[in-house]
């Protein structure tokens, strides 16, 4: 296997030495491009007090290609689908090689604070969000309580 690029090494070091509040990211021992991530739900959002597990992978062409990120914890959000895939511009068209793991994870956290039902990935959730916002938010809160428990440090509920 090719040597790990300097950039990935340095980013990993900085994530450990200077962590982002509310976010953790640790590489797997057997694959240093593959990170186990947790993100705390932002305050005043339906995801408040939840701790969400994610996984992140730096593909071969990183940083020219965006990292791949997925939620492992079930979440009710118009831009996150049932498989945990995230619809977020910086992970797709608006990726820039000057962005980093930490900036991407901050963007994901920001997406939790401000869902965008007009650019949905989970159509049913988005529809609910537009038509009955209150019910949708209540459901997001309920799911956060159910699935995004802070104590959970192992694999999330598999269904």
């Amino acid at each position, binding site marked *: *296997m090719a040597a790990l690029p300097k950039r990935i090494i340095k980013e990993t070091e900085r994530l450990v030495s200077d962590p982002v509040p509310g976010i953790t990211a640790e590489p797997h021992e057997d694959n240093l491009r593959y990170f186990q991530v947790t993100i705390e739900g932002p305050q005043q959002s339906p995801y408040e007090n939840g701790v969400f597990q994610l996984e992140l992978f730096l593909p071969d062409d990183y940083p020219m290609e965006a990292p791949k990120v*997925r939620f492992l914890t079930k979440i009710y959000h118009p831009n996150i689908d049932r498989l945990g895939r995230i619809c977020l511009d910086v992970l797709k068209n608006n990726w820039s090689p000057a962005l980093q793991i930490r900036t991407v994870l901050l963007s994901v956290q920001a997406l939790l604070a401000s869902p965008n039902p007009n650019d949905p990935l989970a159509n049913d959730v988005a529809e609910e969000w537009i038509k009955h916002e209150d019910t949708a938010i209540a459901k997001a809160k309920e799911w956060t309580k159910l699935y995004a428990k802070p104590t959970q440090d192992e694999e999330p509920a598999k*269904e």
Partner: protein
Amino acid sequence: MSKVPRSFRLLEELEKGEKGLGPESCSYGLSDSDDITMTKWNGTILGPPHSNHENRIYSVLIECGPSYPDEPPKVKFVSKINLPCVNSTTGEVVKEKFHTLKEWKRSYTMETVLLELRKEMATPSNKKLLQPQEGTTFE
């Protein structure tokens, strides 16, 4: 090349399957679109022409375990079929009798499996095998 972890690899395959980017002769998708572990998949194979399989559509179940793609998936025919590498009572594809599973490589995908099974149906020794009635299924 770096090692793509299981889940992102399966997401790539899912995307290819969903968009129909692969060949016309086979297709595949998640059995349960809610299953975050993406373990169970449905596949179909369009029987190859000039064989007893012509115009038949075979359904298979594919199970990608926790070690996929380091380990091959488990494959089982739902539609009844008569093939040497398929267990005639359960429909399971026998790993030892099917080279793609036996000599599995990490770069192989579910599409590889389906296409290779289709090739298997078309080999000179297999294409004229008497086939069960169309539409019947394994238990």
